[in-house]
């Protein structure tokens, strides 16, 4: 690290920061691109189909349908960029950015490996170092702004399906955010801190999923609602409202919005892992070191990504009133009960 930074005339801290920025931006993006492939292959597996298998590199190597990613990318770039008549031009142009930015920012606070020391300096494997004061409030804040991508897309495209999808999404995201925040708050309470590094440190010996199982269930369900995935994909609801809020979006605009949904998926899995499954911790190993801890984090995150795909192709979509009832009458009271229960336990322990 020191030699490389001297070679580049940078301080080790700057070099490490630049490296982390690239990693935290490119990592979830790559995973998201791969997840589009996993989703197709996974759905095909679950529904006893074959899935994408036609695209082949140089007409020869099919690689289990992986070249389909490149084919899709080239298609999105080459397509004509249409703007529907009477759309709000500026907002229509702004929408993919509004959808992509929160998705790309959300990962910044999550530690994806154990901190290590080199040359008398501690390097943390999260873009924002611990003690930044934002902690886990940061992904909540970024997640809260993600709804604007949907809302602006819905309104700017001047389409009734789009606006129906956007209104469903905004009501849904706001109502599930409450249950989710309360579940996270009970973790803050039992940890005694809200920095992700502290939360992971507090999960030494016992992952939060054990004592906080109810909280985990609530958070997990709310993550489906926040990422707009089946059984809660009312914003899209292709069998009811064509494609919901991105009905009018084509070419690279659509590709960016589609990709940002998958980045949200990766971030949501990473959040679940950090809050409830010990982050980078490896069972029965106190100090796993950098490589093993990153591998453990990646493995857990990928597992939850797969669970998202799995659930999507297994469960049918709820009806809209069922969704609202579930958000306000099941998730919120459950979350509150979980919070009060843990507060009571802490009070009894003194």
């Amino acid at each position, binding site marked *: 690290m020191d030699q490389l930074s001297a070679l580049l005339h940078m301080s080790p801290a700057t070099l490490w920061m630049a490296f982390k920025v690239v990693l935290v931006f490119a990592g979830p993006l790559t995973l998201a691109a791969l997840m589009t492939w996993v989703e197709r292959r996974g759905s095909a597996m679950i529904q006893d189909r074959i899935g994408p298998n036609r695209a082949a590199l140089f007409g020869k190597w099919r690689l289990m349908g992986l070249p389909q990613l490149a084919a899709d990318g080239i298609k999105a770039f080459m397509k004509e960029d249409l703007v529907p008549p009477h759309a709000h031009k500026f907002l229509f142009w702004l929408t993919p950015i509004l959808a992509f930015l929160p998705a790309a920012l959300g990962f910044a606070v999550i530690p994806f490996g154990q901190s290590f020391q080199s040359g008398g300096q501690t390097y943390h494997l999260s873009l924002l170092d611990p003690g930044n004061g*934002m902690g886990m409030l940061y992904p909540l*804040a970024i997640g809260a702004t993600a709804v604007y991508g949907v809302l602006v897309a819905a309104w700017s495209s001047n389409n009734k399906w789009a606006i129906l999808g956007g209104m469903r999404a*905004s009501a849904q995201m706001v109502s599930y*955010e409450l249950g989710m925040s309360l579940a996270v708050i009970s973790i803050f309470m039992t940890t005694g801190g809200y920095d992700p590094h502290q939360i992971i440190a507090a999960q030494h010996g016992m992952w939060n999923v054990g004592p906080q199982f109810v909280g985990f269930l609530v958070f997990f369900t709310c993550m489906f609602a926040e990422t707009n995935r089946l059984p809660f994909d009312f914003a899209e609801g292709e069998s009811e409202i064509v494609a919901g809020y991105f009905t009018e979006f084509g070419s690279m605009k659509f590709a960016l919005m589609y990709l940002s949904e998958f980045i949200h998926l990766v971030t949501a899995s990473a959040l679940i892992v950090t809050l409830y499954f010990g982050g980078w911790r490896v069972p029965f190993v106190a100090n796993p070191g950098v490589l093993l801890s990153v591998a453990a984090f990646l493995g857990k995150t990928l597992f939850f990504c797969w669970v998202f795909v799995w659930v999507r192709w297994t469960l049918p979509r709820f009806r809209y009133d069922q969704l609202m009832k579930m958000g306000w009458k099941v998730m919120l009271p459950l979350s509150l009960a979980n919070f009060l229960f843990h507060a009571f336990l802490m009070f009894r322990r003194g």
Partner: protein
Amino acid sequence: MFLIFALITLVGALLMFRLKNLITAGLSLVLCFIGIAGLFLLLGNPVAAALQIIVYSGAIVVLVLFVIMLLASHEEEKPEKPRGIQRWGSAVTVSALGVGAIWIVKNSKILASPTTPNVDPMTLNRLGASLFREHLVGFEIAGLLLLAAMIAAVSLVKREL
């Protein structure tokens, strides 16, 4: 850095009340809130910045936009007749408030003898401690007010309970 966030805040606020289209006006309000969150960060209070984004831009403006989208018209209604007194009265009030704010800042004692600022950033733990130790009465009164507002809202919507 301060100038960037101050500009974002000002541009958002100005656009918010100059734009005739209610949706774009609401979105500029979000821009303004994000600028304010940035200012909070510069003041060493990341908790307030996060809460500003979570509560104001994440929940309140979303609900406002939701209601606006439910309405048929997305444009600001024209007044039936132009009211000069409103326009001039508001201009006078705003300029008086602006002059007052500048006067207060000019005459503040802290500005006369600047001390090294407290660089210790605010944390959620410190916020909770000060909320429940020093400002407990205010906190409880706010809670009571919100409860009353909630009961009133429910009773307004549900005619027969």
